[in-house]
């Protein structure tokens, strides 16, 4: 991580849905090779921010730079082609397709040849530990495996930056541990930068190099996991005024 070039930068992002300001003037960045955590209570605007970065909808105002290029307003598929992958909080498998074919859809963006894409997809599946389930229909997978499939599909697109939206939500501690290890391998072995939304505190504290904390659309704190965990604003937003006053 000596390489400190910025891979993603958001400048003064605002998103309004009608009268509601979901994300208010948020600026953040992620360096190459970094794992950046994004935390906050429900409705803090984390997923909204992700959706803007990934091109699901444009921000009301503000700029987003990916490897120095402005990307706000670009479509999801264009951003994916540029090298950004994402997973969804609520898994979205192609239920009519097998695990392998799900992953092939991702791999086809870099290689139009189905045979080569299949080979690539198989490699990715063995990386995430789903190769033994390749021929199973994705409709028959359980949640832990579906989360892995989300990862595999996104990895198959050969991203430089991966946005993970709660890949651990709904998993038991054992499965979470495995995913944490997997995320670390994605960074260390594949050299992919990551921005991770997570509710599981233990996971985000172990994984992240830096953390951003959102509360009701506002950025209230940023820093290393240690810095953030003792920040009074953060404690207040997570545990409430009373607990903060007591401690």
């Amino acid at each position, binding site marked *: 991580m000596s390489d400190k070039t910025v891979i993603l930068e958001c400048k003064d992002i605002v998103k309004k849905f009608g009268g509601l300001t979901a994300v208010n003037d948020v600026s953040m960045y992620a360096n190459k090779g970094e794992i950046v955590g994004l935390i906050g209570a429900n409705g803090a605007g984390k997923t909204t921010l992700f959706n803007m970065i990934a091109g699901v909808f444009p921000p009301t105002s503000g700029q987003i730079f990916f490897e120095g290029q402005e990307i706000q307003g670009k479509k999801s*598929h264009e951003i994916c082609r540029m090298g950004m992958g994402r997973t*969804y909080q609520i898994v979205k*498998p*192609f239920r009519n*397709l097998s695990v392998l074919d799900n992953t092939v859809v991702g791999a086809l963006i870099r290689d139009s040849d189905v045979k080569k894409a299949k080979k690539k997809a198989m490699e990715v599946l063995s990386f995430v530990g789903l190769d033994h389930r390749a021929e199973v229909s994705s409709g028959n997978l359980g949640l832990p495996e579906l989360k892995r499939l989300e990862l595999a*599909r996104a990895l198959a697109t050969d991203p430089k930056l991966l946005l993970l939206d709660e890949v651990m939500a709904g998993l038991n501690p054992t499965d979470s541990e495995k995913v944490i290890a997997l995320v670390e391998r994605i960074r260390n072995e594949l050299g992919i930068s990551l921005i991770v939304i997570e509710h599981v505190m233990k996971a985000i504290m172990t994984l992240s190099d830096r953390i951003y904390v959102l509360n009701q659309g506002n950025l209230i704190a940023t820093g290393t996991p240690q810095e953030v965990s003792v920040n009074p604003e953060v404690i207040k937003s997570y545990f409430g005024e009373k607990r903060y006053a007591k401690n």
Partner: protein
Amino acid sequence: MKKLNLKSGFLIVISVIGLCLPLFVSNPYTLQYFISMLLFGYLATSWNIIGGYAGQMANGNGVYFGIGAYVSTCLFTYNNLSPWAGMLIGGAISALVALGLGRLTFRLSGTYFTMATVACLHLIRLLVMSNQYLFGYEIRGAQGIVLPWKGESIINMQFTGKVEYYYIILAFFVIGVLVSYHIKTSKDGYYLSAINTNQEAASSLGVNVMHMKLKASCISAFMMAIGGTFYAQLYSMIDPSRVLGYDLSIQIMLYAAVGGRGTLAGPIIAAFLLSPLNDILRGTLGTTVSGLALVIYGLVMMLMVYFIPQGLWPFLRDKLSRAELKAQTAERK
């Protein structure tokens, strides 16, 4: 390996039967059954590309069939252009119309999309129905056009017998199936079935959803239009209620739905079973109790949709693979 042999063996037998059929069937009336089987198999296969693979419930796609029929017929009747060239022009025009309509309608989703496609069909049908002239061609409104006899020849696509028509539609059908197979097994097929299940996820994996839908729609429209030209040449007569009717669109969609949307074989199997059923019922009951044929046909459709909603082919395939599995486990024991 064994399975592959079985499959290719089956295909060879079917092809031989298909090629030699006119040698055994001399009655033109019976041959007509087979022609309409192949025509509907071809049309259902065409529709399946947008309606099945891409999962877009376009319900007015008969409009492209009608455009194909009218364009080639006008060019043949008034400009003396061979239907072979006319059908390419009709196909191109249909694809362009599909492109324009798609730009508008693919923004809609679900039921709204379906309704918009039906509206497009009716708009164009009414346009043709209520005009004596269109773009300078005499289309004679609701009366329709009777194709002039220009002599039996391949170039005119006019024959006194049915055998030639049979081989032409057989060729179209085979080409249609090959195109469909190619799409299904290529990158496009993967992308279309991803769009079919989850557009948002597909888009996040780099699939240009709008572009893919338009592409599928244009290919489907082109193929439909060629079917329209064939129909016009076969019956030597077209009118808006027949070639631009809502019934036709529904019929094509039903074959694909009953057979199994999104599968290669489903729409073909359903068209091969149901189109002759329709013809035979009408042929035998049509003269005794009017309407009874349609009632029975409708009942068969309803029962099939009720009992095998996933479609005939997925249902059969499931049974087959289960039987195979059973046989395998029995062998091991």
